[in-house]
């Protein structure tokens, strides 16, 4: 794995693209190691010969890089900004992501919000209240990104197990319920924080929020089941100690 990772880690491509390179090169390296072991009968010699046959890591990195299309390079740049960086913790990553999304949302939505707030239109509420609603929405959305992201990773790891994290259906269920609870609470939180007592009947919408929470929870569980194993494999590759700086 180390020989493969030394060649693949420095490649500037999306995580998905690099995982494909890793898996395919690992399958190849394992097969040629088995061939060499059958021929030489010595583990160390077979390993050295298999690595020699695969090629010099730096040269292979350059060749792999040359095979990455422009779209793959753009994906890499986006992942550098919004993606997880090994060995970042889930808390740190989701916090960084929430702050980034908040900054981008504020920057992108400011012209629209100001236009609406300062326009004399037929809205029943004044400009300041409209600004407060928009601001509250952005703030709650960022808090949701942090909490839901964190709970998703905790739930996924408890559901599937990862390195030092043991599988625990009980913990996975607790995190999943918390995930649903955050979703359920987000709607009323926006309404209450933005409008205060004006919408005291927001609780009438509770059944709708419960449905939203259940749907969101179901989707997160489905997503973790389908994509979790690949995400965990990616994390394990990225955290592999390859002995040299990539």
């Amino acid at each position, binding site marked *: 794995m180390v020989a493969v990772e030394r060649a693949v880690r420095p490649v500037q491509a999306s995580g998905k693209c690099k995982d494909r390179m890793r898996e395919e090169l690992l*399958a190849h390296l*394992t097969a040629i190691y088995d061939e060499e072991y059958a021929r030489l009968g010595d583990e160390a010699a077979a390993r050295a010969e298999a690595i020699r046959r695969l090629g010099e890591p730096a040269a*292979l990195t350059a060749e792999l890089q040359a095979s990455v299309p422009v779209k793959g390079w753009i994906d890499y740049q986006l992942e550098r900004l919004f993606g997880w960086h090994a060995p970042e913790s889930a808390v740190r990553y989701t916090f960084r992501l929430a702050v980034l999304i908040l900054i981008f949302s504020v920057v992108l939505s400011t012209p629209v919000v100001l236009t609406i707030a300062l326009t004399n239109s037929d809205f029943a509420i004044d400009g300041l209240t409209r600004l407060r609603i928009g601001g509250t929405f952005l703030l709650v959305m960022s808090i949701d990104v942090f909490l839901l992201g964190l709970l998703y990773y905790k739930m996924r790891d408890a559901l599937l197990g990862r390195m030092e994290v043991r599988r625990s259906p009980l913990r996975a269920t607790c995190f999943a319920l918390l995930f649903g609870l955050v979703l359920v609470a987000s709607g009323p939180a926006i309404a209450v924080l933005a409008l205060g007592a004006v919408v005291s009947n927001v609780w009438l919408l509770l059944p709708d929020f419960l449905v939203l929470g259940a749907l969101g929870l179901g989707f997160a569980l489905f997503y973790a089941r389908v994509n979790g194993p690949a995400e965990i494999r990616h994390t394990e590759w990225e955290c592999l100690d390859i002995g040299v700086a990539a």
Partner: protein
Amino acid sequence: MEPIHGDKLRGHLETMILSTLERGEAHGLEILRRLEEAGCGLLRLKEGSLYPALYRLEEAGEVAAEWEPEPHGRRGGRRRLYRLTDKGTRRLAEGRAEWQQFVSVLGNILGATS
């Protein structure tokens, strides 16, 4: 005869890969075996170099690939099975024509053909 190393194959590796896939779909190691077999043991490739060439061919739509379901009874990662596409077949025909022309021209210059 002296072995032929990767540097001398530059520019031809992709056409050679397409040629091996004419015999049917194959994963990377099988493609290498076919190349070695066709090269009578005189081809010396850094085996990792095969994959960037395969990725370029896939990106160009000249080969299509899909993952093998599971590594049945085999250690290591999953393998991808590559097959020739219609575009790849056309590119192979063009590559062969170019090669014939190249050999003919150089043969005339070097006096290797009658």
